[in-house]
């Protein structure tokens, strides 16, 4: 009896050793994916996660023979740069990942970036859009967007349509960037900014701000608010105070009317004009296939927003590098591959990485919220810019 038990243990131990020995012999690439799964940012984090999972499900096996990918998912708990930095450090030091990707929030990515410079860790932002982050680390690349990319062309377009605009943005780096980009382009085009307000990032009440906008009687209000519940809340405040009826147009980057939140906003969102790189209503074949795959996976009534596409394309880039290097990841060679990356058929249209700045090059579309087939959609009405590099970096080249 006793002998049998000891034997069982010995056999179990051996099988463990054999099993682990076997899995090491294959080339395993470890990828750290950071998103937000708890706290107020969880809905956006969930979108990022869905993009990541959808990619893994559809394309997770498109690897050279003998190469495996192991993903390690971590929760950064929201716009919480300290936690994010700690998690990234743990992924690098403890889990020994070869890529870090994901990352929803700009402050988090800004905290992680210097670390990736020290550790030589390719870090691909799937969302965090802070314009200057690429300058903080030569191992940083971005597949998402910058707010300059959306707001600068939107400012140029607005200068032809409106005379007086009020800006209302969230009081953190992306908000400041949106305001700066829009204001610069709008003023260059001859427009007048009649007022500018910055709204606290944490739990704001938008009604007093919208009231101030209404009292100033501008032609339009330009706003950047983090996509998600906050964007829905400002939209409601805009409608409740009757700014739409007072003839004040609502404009901003696509964060205002993300495809997943749009249905919850209701009719007040109709006619809102945004500039962005992705709309679920885009009629490119690659996008139609992508939206269909998303609906099949997560439900007919859901639409993928730009977070989903960001995470999907980030994983596409990671897999591209793994394929090019045949699973043997060297950080410097990985960055060379990343700098040459071009994808003609992303759901958002053709994209590429700018070899100079490691930032995304993509099209920007002007969209209007319309009702299409009973649901609200960001209908692309014009291509504002084709293969647009980040305008801020053209104005502020790295010294």
């Amino acid at each position: 009896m006793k002998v049998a038990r000891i034997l069982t243990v010995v056999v179990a131990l051996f099988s463990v050793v054999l099993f682990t020995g076997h899995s090491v012999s294959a080339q395993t690439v470890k990828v750290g994916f950071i998103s937000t799964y708890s706290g107020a940012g969880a809905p956006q984090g969930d979108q990022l996660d869905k993009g990541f999972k959808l990619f893994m499900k559809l394309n997770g096996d498109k690897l050279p023979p003998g190469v495996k990918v192991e993903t390690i998912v971590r929760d950064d708990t929201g716009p919480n740069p300290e936690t994010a930095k700690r998690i990234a450090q743990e992924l690098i030091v403890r889990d020994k990942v070869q890529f870090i990707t994901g990352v929803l929030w700009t402050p988090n990515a800004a905290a992680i970036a210097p670390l990736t410079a020290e550790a030589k860790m390719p870090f691909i932002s799937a969302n965090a859009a802070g314009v200057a982050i690429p300058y903080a680390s030569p191992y940083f690349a971005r597949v998402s967007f910058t707010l300059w990319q959306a707001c600068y062309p939107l400012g140029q377009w607005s200068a032809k349509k409106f005379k007086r605009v009020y800006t209302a943005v969230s009081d953190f780096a992306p908000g400041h960037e949106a305001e700066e980009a829009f204001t610069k382009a709008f003023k260059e085009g001859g427009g007048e900014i009649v007022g500018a307000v910055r709204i606290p990032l944490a739990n704001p009440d938008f009604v007093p701000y919208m009231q101030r906008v209404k009292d100033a009687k501008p032609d339009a209000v330009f706003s950047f608010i983090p996509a998600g519940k906050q964007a829905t809340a400002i939209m409601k405040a805009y409608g409740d105070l009757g700014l739409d009826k007072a003839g004040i147009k609502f404009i901003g980057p696509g964060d205002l009317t993300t495809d997943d939140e749009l249905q919850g906003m209701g009719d007040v969102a109709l006619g809102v004009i945004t500039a962005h790189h992705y709309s679920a209503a885009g009629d490119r074949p690659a996008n139609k296939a992508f939206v269909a795959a998303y609906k099949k996976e997560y439900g007919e009534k859901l639409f993928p927003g730009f977070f989903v596409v960001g995470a999907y394309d980030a994983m596409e880039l990671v897999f591209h590098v793994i394929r090019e290097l045949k699973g043997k990841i060297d950080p410097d060679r990985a960055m060379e591959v990343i700098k040459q990356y071009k994808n003609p058929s992303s759901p958002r249209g053709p994209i590429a990485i700018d070899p100079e700045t490691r930032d995304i090059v993509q099209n920007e579309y002007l969209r209007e919220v319309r009702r299409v087939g009973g649901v609200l959609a960001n209908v692309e009405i014009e291509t504002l810019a084709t293969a647009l590099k980040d305008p801020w970096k053209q104005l502020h080249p790295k010294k």
Partner: protein
Amino acid sequence: MSETGYAASPRIRWTEWLPWLAGVAVFFLLPEYLLFGARILTYILFALSLDLIVGYAGIVTLGHSAFFGAGAYVAGILAAKVKLTDPIVLLVAATVAAGVLGVTTGAVILRTRGLTQLMLTLAIAALCLEVANKATPITGGADGLSGVTIAPIFGLFRFDLFGKTAYLLCLVTLLAGWWLVRRLIYSPFGATLTGIRENSDRMHAIGAPVYRRLLAVYTISAMIAGVAGALSTETNQFVGLNVLGFEPSGELLVMLILGGVGRLYGAFVGPVVFLIAQDALAKQFPQFWYLGIGLMLVLVVLFARGGLLGLADALAARVRRSV
């Protein structure tokens, strides 16, 4: 580990060296976990400072992160904006700053008791948070304070990616903090504090300067929390707004309750158990880990009123009785 306090013998028992042995062992045995270890050590120091006022002096506070945050921001701002990067100087500066904040805010809140006091501590932490949020040019606001670089300790030991230096610095600082708190608890001063906690009217009646004693311990506690804050800045080389938030204060109190309030080693056990559980759960279940933490707390509150150490005491007593 029975009753600690003035009545107990102040001699250091051999068991009290065990945590330090464990701390040194971790350095050699678990090199991949040193950053995490540094975080735990920082939290133990922070919990120790809270235990001093909550557990021993009976001051209720939910705003202790104000001092942690003040220390963190002072160290961070000096390093990032003034380019004063010596880690030891930063620790001293943070101690002084947190002490000043402690004495000024303590002078107000210690005139009140109970719920009023609780509300005031919350209000002060909220004020500090808002100041840090609004003073964007200095603190970085919601984006956090980046660009913090810390010089090597004594010009020799660089803060490395693996956190070796940070871990040892935290361990040594914690040892100093532990020694100070232990001395305080076993001193007549510590006895006055326990007296005030148990019956402040009576302490007044026997002529003890209650307010001055409370202010003194509050300031000392604030200074220790400030050191912990500065340690966190030096380890992370970054300061975010959340160091001043309500969450760290609340979490810290939870850790202390988990370990056992009003006992020196409760402040050691709580953070170790809480943070390791948090780390393990967050890795295993990135989407549901808060649920695990919640369950753990419910169980402790239901079945271990005196915290884990209280539970250990009860078990030990039962074993002794049955023998």
